[in-house]
Structure formats: C-alpha cells, structure tokens
C-alpha cells in the first residue's frame, strides 16, 4: 500500500428507535465507501448537508465507530494498521498522526482555557513535552500560524473568528501530525479571513509535508485547494477524480448539479445557468432503490430506478463515477470556456 490512508468498504449505520418500545429503524449514513489518500495530497470531500461527509471524517478518526469496513493507515516506515479494529488505548499513538480542525472556532475551543493551555493540552495528553520544552513548542507553533506570544494568557473570546481558527490549527499542528482532516474549516469565515486561512493551510502543508482531507460544501474553495475530489450523495461516493478533470467535465449528474449551483461573481455569466436544481435531498431512511440520485436526475431512466450503479472507472478519463450513462451524457463543467474568460 503506497497510500497514506485507505478506506475500504466503509459503512456506518445509525440505529434509531422512536420511543422506548417503538420500532427500530436503520439509517445508512455511509454505504460501502472506498477511497485512498495519497501522501502529500489534498483530498476534498464534497456534497450537500446530510450527504455523510462529516460522518466519514468522524469514522476515519474513530470519533464514531464504523459499522463495517476498514480504515487502513500507513504509519511512517511501518505496515498498514486497520484503525477500526483498535481499542481506545491502541488508537492513541495514531491520534498524534491524524488530527482534526473543525468548522466553528467559537465552539471548538474551550472558553475556560487560556490559549497557552488549549495548544499545550495535546502535548500533555500525549506526554510529548513538559516544562520549558513544552512552552517553547507552544510559542513556536502559535508563531507559525500568526499568533504572537502576547496572546498566550488570553481566553478564546478575546479573539476574532479568524484568529480562533488559527488557534485551532495550532492545536492540531502541535503534535506534528501527518494527516489533517479539516471539516468545513473555512466555511464560517468572511472572504478575506478565509483567504488568509487558505493561504496558511497551503504554507503549512509545504513546510510540514502535510496531507489534508478537506471536507467542504464550498466548491470554489475546493477547486482552489484540492488535488482530488470525492463527491458524496446520500452516503455514497458518486464521483471521484482529479479536481480539474472533474470540474472541466463531470461524469455524474449530481456533480453537475453542484457545479451549476455555484455562484459566479460575474453577472454577465448569470444566463449560463441551465439545469435548474430539482427537488431536495431525500430523507436517508427513504433512499431510492436504484441509483440514490434518481429522484433529482434529469437523465433518469427505468434502469436507474431499479439497478444501483457501481462506482467504476470511466474509460478515457481519470474519473470514476457511479452512473449507468456516464460515458454518453454531456454534462456541463464549472470553468468558463477557454476563449471567453472574463473577470479575474
């Protein structure tokens, strides 16, 4: 295995019960997910709210137990380990290597802890450093994310959203991880702060040789930062491939729908929109029998209603898509045609 992380046939079922004696129902949040994360790349996971992208991130770090499947992690110079089989204590060393950054820097930092302790806590838990060495590590990592030493004694409320996100990044970075899972890490920030954090993530990636799993619903940001993209719908991977190929000409109608819904900051291109967004994402417990996307797809045929398409490589492209008609349908990409590029 050359990949840093390999997810194999991962499924997550939530059991719901209405009332104490009510019937038990099963909710398939993730269905047979396969993906690989290569060392040094940024892999984006995209999709609408409720498609399972956060659940996937959580299952990878074992914040949620997977129902079945494997999450293989390849440690530096070691053999792959299946994280799903590990007990809490066995998992601990790998928690240093795989860290998370969360969306809301307001609620992901403990309001009762000073910045110094927030960043020092992972070092203490993993007994990496103490005393003077610990102090030096904290100060140096905060400096890397652009927070000065004068901030050490302050509490999170004293900082702006962008600064809080920097503190959250410092906390993830202080253990010198190899893989960072960023769950909507820039979604709550205004455009200028978002740009600062995106630049910071890119610089840190180069400086520390990091690999990112970037979970986001914002496709402009994904286009900017990701090398490869995984598109999820109702707990399935429906399309995956290199960012540019996927944005240039997607092979799954759901990807087209997502790309089409992107606001383009050029009012003269407004009329370019064609495919209107049809319908809403169905309730997970009420998943269609065939293709999960059939209820909203403009190409839907009988076959789609009855037979679930598998994710498969599409000949002549670097993409994989789960659509019976991926070879023949003409889907619209996100980029302006090469000759009419306007507006920087």
């Amino acid at each position, binding site marked *: 295995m050359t990949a840093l992380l390999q997810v194999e046939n991962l499924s997550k079922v939530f059991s719901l019960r209405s009332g104490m004696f009510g019937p038990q129902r099963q909710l398939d949040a993730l269905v047979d997910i396969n993906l690989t994360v290569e060392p040094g790349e940024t892999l984006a996971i995209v999709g609408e709210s409720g498609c399972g992208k956060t659940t996937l991130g959580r299952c990878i770090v074992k914040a949620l137990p997977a129902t079945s499947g494997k999450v293989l992690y390849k440690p530096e110079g070691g053999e792959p380990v299946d994280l799903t089989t590990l007990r809490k204590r066995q998992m601990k060393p790998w928690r240093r290597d795989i860290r998370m950054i969360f969306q809301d820097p307001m609620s992901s930092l403990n309001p009762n802890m000073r910045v110094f302790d927030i960043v020092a806590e992972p070092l203490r838990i993993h007994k990496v450093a103490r005393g003077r060495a610990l102090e030096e590590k904290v100060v140096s990592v905060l400096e890397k994310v652009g927070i000065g030493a004068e901030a050490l004694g302050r509490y999170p409320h004293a900082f*702006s959203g962008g600064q809080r996100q920097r503190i959250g990044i410092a906390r993830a970075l202080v253990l010198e991880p190899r893989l960072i899972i960023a769950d909507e890490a820039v979604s709550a920030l205004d*455009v*200028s*702060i*978002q*740009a*600062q954090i*995106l*630049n910071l993530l*890119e610089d840190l990636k180069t400086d520390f040789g990091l690999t990112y799993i970037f979970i986001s619903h914002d496709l*402009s*940001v994904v*286009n*900017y*930062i990701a090398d490869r993209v995984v598109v999820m719908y109702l707990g399935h991977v429906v399309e995956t491939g290199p*960012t*540019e190929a996927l*944005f*240039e000409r997607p092979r799954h109608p759901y990807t087209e729908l997502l790309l089409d819904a*992107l606001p*383009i*900051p*050029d*009012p*003269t291109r407004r009329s370019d929109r064609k495919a209107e967004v049809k319908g809403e994402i169905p309730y997970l417990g009420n998943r269609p029998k065939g293709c999960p996307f059939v209820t909203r797809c403009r190409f839907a045929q009988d076959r789609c209603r009855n037979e679930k398409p598998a994710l498969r490589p599409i000949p002549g492209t670097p993409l994989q898509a789960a659509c019976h008609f991926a070879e023949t349908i003409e889907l619209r990409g*996100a*980029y*302006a045609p090469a000759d009419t*590029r*306007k*507006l*920087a």
Partner: protein
Amino acid sequence: MVEQGNVFDVFREPKHPYTQALMRSRPALKRKSERERLMPIRGNVPSPAQRPRGCSFAGRCPYVFQPCRDIVPARTETGPGHVARCHLLTQVPEGVEA
C-alpha cells in the same frame, strides 16, 4: 459607503481598492494552470470607536498616499450611477506619472 453602483459595473470594474481587494480574496473558478495565490486584505477591520479620520480604508489600502489618512474622499461619479469614494479617482499621487 465606499462604492455603489449597478452590479454589472461594480463587478466588472470595481473602482474602490476595498472592492477590488474583496474580489481578489475569493478563489475564482479557474483551471490549475491559471490559479493565483489568494490576496487577503492586510490588517484587520478597525474598531468603529477608532474610525480613521480620513478614508476608512486608509490603514489597509495598498495604494494609500498623502491625503488618505486625513481627508475623507468625496463621492466621485465614475460612470452613470456608479460612485466611489477614493482619492485616486480625483488625484494622482506625487511621483507617479499620470
């Protein structure tokens, strides 16, 4: 208010450096080969209690020159219905060829 106008005019040709900077902060939908590093606006939004005396963007503007910090720029019409407040629209900074 720093700039106001029809969506088409403001997006096609933003006249105020703040508007221009906002546009550059947002990742554009471009192919990898044309991708440019994002240019966030430097500094932070000043506190409303310490509003700058002159142009409110003076402390963060890349083109700041002598009148900016002391004199509030006038509303300047740059096209039909398109107005912006920036000294660059009415003056040329010293040492720069017009």
